[in-house]
């Protein structure tokens, strides 16, 4: 068995290798992935039980509750984003690697989204059924969650990088991330509510898409800078 020789450490090869590594780690330790997912499902599924079966009421609170639960579940999973890498020294190896750190930060966010954001989007229609949301509204919900969780994975990596050296950084992480995550939450939940009331979706989706692009262009660099600071 030989390891392939490369002329130069290719950025995309490094990024891809990191994504493959993190996703296969998530597959080998499913607990880390399933915990936030269970949290999301439980919180969102308990509301209809307490509130009662009134269709109109459920349909009106559904989008908001699902979105809040998704945001909190994502925050829960973000804490461990760089933690194990920090503890076993692989974060240090990333810092001294010739592959640009921002590219590796992007890889960490991508792997985080694949192992926490995407599963959340995929289970959301099941939870949406308990709120008796119609098929078209559920579709829009999935679309907003898809865009929203990408933003949250990118934005969250900055917060996780800043708090990685701290013990019990969870509260601080939430405090740092929540203000910047508010637009995603508000636009995500409102877009779904508006569709349910018969309005158009374009505006909300455009905003969420723009936020993804904004985060994509800023977050990897901010994460890289934050990692250098927290590893001093």
């Amino acid at each position, binding site marked *: 068995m030989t390891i392939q020789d490369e002329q130069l450490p290719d950025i995309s090869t490094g990024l891809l290798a990191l994504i493959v590594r993190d996703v296969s780690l998530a597959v080998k330790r499913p607990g880390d992935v399933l915990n936030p997912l269970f949290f999301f499902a439980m919180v969102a599924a308990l509301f209809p039980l307490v509130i009662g079966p009134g269709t109109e009421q459920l349909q009106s609170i559904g989008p908001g509750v699902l979105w809040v639960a998704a945001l909190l579940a994502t925050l829960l999973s973000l804490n461990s984003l760089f933690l194990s890498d920090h503890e076993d020294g692989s974060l240090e190896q990333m810092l*001294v690697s010739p592959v640009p750190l921002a590219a590796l930060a992007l890889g960490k966010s991508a792997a985080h989204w694949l192992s926490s954001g995407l599963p959340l989007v995929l289970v959301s229609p099941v939870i949406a059924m308990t709120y008796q949301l119609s098929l078209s509204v559920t579709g829009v919900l999935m679309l907003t969650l898809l865009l929203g969780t990408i933003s949250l994975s990118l934005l969250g990596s900055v917060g996780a990088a800043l708090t990685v050296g701290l013990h019990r950084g969870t509260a601080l992480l939430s405090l740092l991330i929540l203000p910047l995550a508010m637009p995603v939450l508000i636009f995500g939940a409102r877009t779904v509510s508006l569709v349910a009331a018969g309005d158009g979706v374009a505006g909300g989706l455009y905003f969420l898409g723009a936020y993804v692009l904004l985060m994509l262009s800023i977050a990897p660099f901010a994460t890289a800078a934050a990692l250098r600071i927290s590893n001093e």
Partner: protein
Amino acid sequence: MQLSADHLTLYRGQRCLFKGLGFALNPGELLLLEGSNGSGKTSLLRAIAGLLELESGTVRWNGTPLLRERQSFQNSMVWMSHKPGLKGDLTLVENLRYEAALRLQAEVEFATVLKQLGLNRLTRLPVRSLSAGQQRRVALARLLLSSATVWMMDEPTANLDAEGRDLVVKIVGQHLAKGGMAIVAAHQDFDLDAPVKRIRLQ
């Protein structure tokens, strides 16, 4: 190729770890950082690697300050800290394959390196199940597989048996003989037939 530094100064809180340190390292030379526990060997090593910001002083790679040449220096440097930097849930091969994507690889046979380190029977086990000494050997494989010129090693002989310590000294010697450079932080002596420069930290 030259790695040099001048006027390196670092404070930790009020305490001065080192002040006005300088060195110049050429191909084939070993720089040994000596000192008791807590004397700042690791901090100095991290500072040279660019992981720690210095109070003052400049580290230069081929005459250019590191902060401006980070990419090119990191391309020529490989780092071995006291943490193995391996994922316990992945096998040795999976770990090293990921490493291979992160830095340039030397033209060596993967199997040969594993055999040299006595790891060839452990390739399918998750790294978690290896002993600390064996994990140390996997970290050594990272150095042997990379094409980097500068080896930065923090206590490379920690957790290793006598045989392992001899092995470390031997492969560092071979690396220097090929024109490589090494900076080693160690509290034990490092017996080598190579030009050795020493920095003793108080």
